[in-house]
């Protein structure tokens, strides 16, 4: 994703100055506008007919419909989990639209040229040009920026449907399949059948099961053996319609020796009524393959009184199924009124590796309960968790994680670091780690700290003429640095500005 901050900043003398300027230049939630566009809605509520309708709209084969219906029947027997430290009104699952599609997408455009200009303009305005052009890497002069532009292929999901996918042909030349999941179900049923639900089973949890029944679109990636994906892939999720839930499903398969870096971005308009988002991301990684999955989650967080915002219930899991498979999750969670999200790694293959880098920022009335699970099943597996939680305003921010060393996961290693930063005396920061070690040769280390923005550091900045808000942004950026560095370049830029924006107004 490129950074479109309105005006480009020519020189970067360092991350912090850039952040400071961004804070000064920008409003609070800059993606809060909506696109006026004619939509087709399925009737409100959820029942078997809605599930059938979604399947029919996507022209799915019978087996897919059966799979959805099985999930729906299971979902009806399940209860919403209440163990997270989240407080929100009861969700009326019948008071939602489960399918909303721009009218112009009734007949799927054959190429991007046929897509409704209004849709293209929406993405343009979000900074996601749906054109097959070089995307300039962030800001000139940034460390490690390649001299020439970089290509990023984009799958753009608008409410319930994929609007288009760029660079498909060029990717196809390399053997990489990158398309919407609805297309993959039709075009590559053998792959979808083999892998869909193999990491996150239909009955996994309340929200994943709901997603299995009603997911309308999402992205599909297959990288064949020995292939390094020639460009970064990204999906941009936009919720536009009111009272509409977005349920997307992403399936990524990295075959033996493959490599892919995948980016995910999300935004939504400012609305008074909370909206539901329940996604599932499944990643399958085979022998020697590697997947990097980076998210900048910037759903509308609700206003200062906690009105509106996205309720984000997401199940993300990567299965390092074979030897030396590697996965890296990086997330910057700044948006959403409610975040319930635990990107996890199943380290099944010997010597497989999982990493989780997270910045979760909760301001105003936001509540985040997020973390990861590292499940070590194979020998000599390694994992690393670095989590930075920042609470400001009246927000509650919880790290919840599991590190499990099974008896046969001998000689494995985990290192966990969770730090929390509190800004103001009305917010809360919580840590709930589960550490389960069932063999002797493995080593597990967990550290967590909670502190406030250091007075000495603030004083140092203030003494040099930096105003308080900018000084806090500076300190916070330093606090997050380890995670920011793990992000791909374009994301790191955006994430840095987001860190600053999310905290705006939390000081003084």
């Amino acid at each position, binding site marked *: 994703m490129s950074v479109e901050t309105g005006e480009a900043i020519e020189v970067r003398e360092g991350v912090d100055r850039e952040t400071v300027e961004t804070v000064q230049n920008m409003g609070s939630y800059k993606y809060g506008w909506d696109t006026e566009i004619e939509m087709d809605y399925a009737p409100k509520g959820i029942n078997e007919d809605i599930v059938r309708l979604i399947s029919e709209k996507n022209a799915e084969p019978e087996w897919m419909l059966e799979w959805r219906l099985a999930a729906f029947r299971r979902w009806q027997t399940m209860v919403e*989990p209440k*163990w997270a*430290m989240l407080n929100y009104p009861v969700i009326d699952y019948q008071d939602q639209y489960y399918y909303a599609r721009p009218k112009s997408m009734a007949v799927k455009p054959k190429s991007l040229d046929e897509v409704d200009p209004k849709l293209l303009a929406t993405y343009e305005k979000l900074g996601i040009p749906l054109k097959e052009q070089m995307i300039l890497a962030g800001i000139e002069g940034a460390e490690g920026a390649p001299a020439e532009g970089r290509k990023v292929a984009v799958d753009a999901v608008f409410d319930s449907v994929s609007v288009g996918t760029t660079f498909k042909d060029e990717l196809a030349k390399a053997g990489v399949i990158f398309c919407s999941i609805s297309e993959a179900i039709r075009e590559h049923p053998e792959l979808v059948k083999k892998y869909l639900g*193999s990491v996150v*089973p239909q*009955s*996994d*949890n309340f929200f994943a099961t709901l997603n299995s029944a009603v997911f309308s679109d999402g992205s599909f990636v297959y990288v064949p053996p020995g292939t390094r994906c020639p460009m970064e892939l990204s999906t941009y999720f936009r919720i536009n319609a009111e009272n509409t839930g977005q349920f997307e499903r992403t399936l990524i398969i990295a075959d033996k020796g493959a490599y892919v870096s995948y980016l995910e971005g999300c935004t939504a308009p400012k609305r008074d009524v909370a909206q539901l988002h329940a996604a599932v991301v499944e990643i399958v990684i085979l022998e020697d393959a590697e997947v990097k999955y980076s998210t900048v989650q910037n759903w509308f967080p609700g206003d200062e009184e906690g009105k509106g915002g996205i309720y984000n219930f997401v*199940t993300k899991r990567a299965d390092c199924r074979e030897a030396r498979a590697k996965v890296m999750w990086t997330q910057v969670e700044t948006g959403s009124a409610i975040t319930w999200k*635990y990107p996890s790694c*199943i380290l*099944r293959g010997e010597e497989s590796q999982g990493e989780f880098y997270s910045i979760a920022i909760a301001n105003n009335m936001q509540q985040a309960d997020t973390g990861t699970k590292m*499940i070590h*099943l194979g020998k000599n597996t390694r994992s690393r968790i670095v989590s930075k939680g920042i609470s400001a305003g009246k927000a509650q921010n919880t790290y*919840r994680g*599991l590190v*499990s*060393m099974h*008896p046969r996961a001998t000689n494995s290693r985990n290192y966990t670091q969770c730090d*929390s930063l*509190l*800004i*103001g*005396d*009305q*917010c*809360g*920061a*919580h*840590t*709930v*780690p*589960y*550490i*389960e*070690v*069932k*063999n*002797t*040769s*493995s*080593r*597990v*280390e*967990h*550290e*967590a*700290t*909670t*502190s*406030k923005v250091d007075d000495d550091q603030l004083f140092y900045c203030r003494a040099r003429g930096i105003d308080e808000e900018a000084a806090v942004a500076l300190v916070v950026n330093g606090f997050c640095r380890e995670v920011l560095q793990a992000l791909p370049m374009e994301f790191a830029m955006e994430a840095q500005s987001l860190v600053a924006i999310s905290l705006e107004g939390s000081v003084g």
Partner: protein
Amino acid sequence: MADTAVLSAQTPAVEGKARPGASALSARLEALDLPQGGFTAAARRDAAERLASMGLPGARDEYWRYTDPAPFNAPRPEPLSVPARDASLFSDIDRLTLVFVDGVFDAAASDDLSAEGLQIESLAAADRGADHWAVGLYGTLEAAGQVPVKRPFAVLNTLAARDGLLIRVTGPVSRPLHVLYRRQDAAADVVLHHVVKLEPGAELTLLETGGIGARSNTMLEVDLAAGARFHHISSKRADDAKLGIGHIFARVGEGALFKSFALSVNGRMMRNEGVIEIAGDDAVAHIAAAVLGDGDEGAFHHDDTVFITHAAERCESRQVFKKVLKNGAHGIFQGKILVKPGAQKTDGYQISQGLLLDEGSQFLAKPELEIYADDVKCSHGSTTGALDETAMFYLRSRGVPREQAIVLLVLSFLADALAEIENDELRDAILVRLDEWLTTRAKG
């Protein structure tokens, strides 16, 4: 895909064990000879109501995720052979001794209770009367400690305790008070409830050793007024702690100090719950444990579950838990620091470490922080692993035999927990015992 079942839920849950129903609770209560109570009658009636509404815990309860409550839910314990009497850990220390046999206070075997600054009665004797200084305390701290987590066995204790000690301290007591438990009845199912009240500026050291019963449920309610200082050391050995659940519910007043240390050497199934509320400013609360578990003598399972609440400013809390595990032993630590809004300048620290001496042993930890104040310093750490091979190599290369090197490394691993004992004499007594035990083990 054999593991998907294990991995499927977002939070792993123990499968297949439903919560015991009302009939299980009434069977549990029928097996106990419930006392009416004198001054405790109201507290017991209240406990009966609370217990009826919360029920007995099940293995699927989050709070019991690592320890199966079934042996505590069973109406009766399995009979347990009575061990030969052994010299007490503290026999060389000048102390006041109070003896319980099968959970009943034995006045004849105990020292004279009229020490200066000390008021001690047995619960059984005091509860014949309708009025007592402990009337506002008995079951009160326990009841206050039921939020946010339900602790049914603590409620059961308040309801069913037949004996215990009521200790009120008005000044400094120079000699430690030693509560010595003895077992004679192989089937004794003991429920003991102690109440300790330290008036402003009072100081007391309380020692507990010995086997309480075939199964035990103990409670120590401790109320510390401003500036009071309370030291607690308990020691459990293989024959002492076959099946037990121990509770400490403490309220720490302004500028007061609370310190508790527990040593457990083997045993079978122990659950210790510490619930400490730091209620006054500038107070200090430390809770620590050193555990040596060898599954060789039957399944070893040791669970420490601690909940420290900071409700005042400028207070300090420390949790230090060290567990050495071998032969399939299970060590559990569930610790929590809750910092309430306004509890500024809190300094909270928590460390839990497992040392696994061989394959098959497990260390399971859930160290939690819940913080609602910004000007605080809270940290926790948890590590699990085997003996440090580098340290071992260092010792071996200097001619220390392997067995001796293990003893040294284990003792150094436990050192931080032992350091929580302030009194040198008491700490040395424990160290000597530990060293002996480890050395005998290493040779065997």
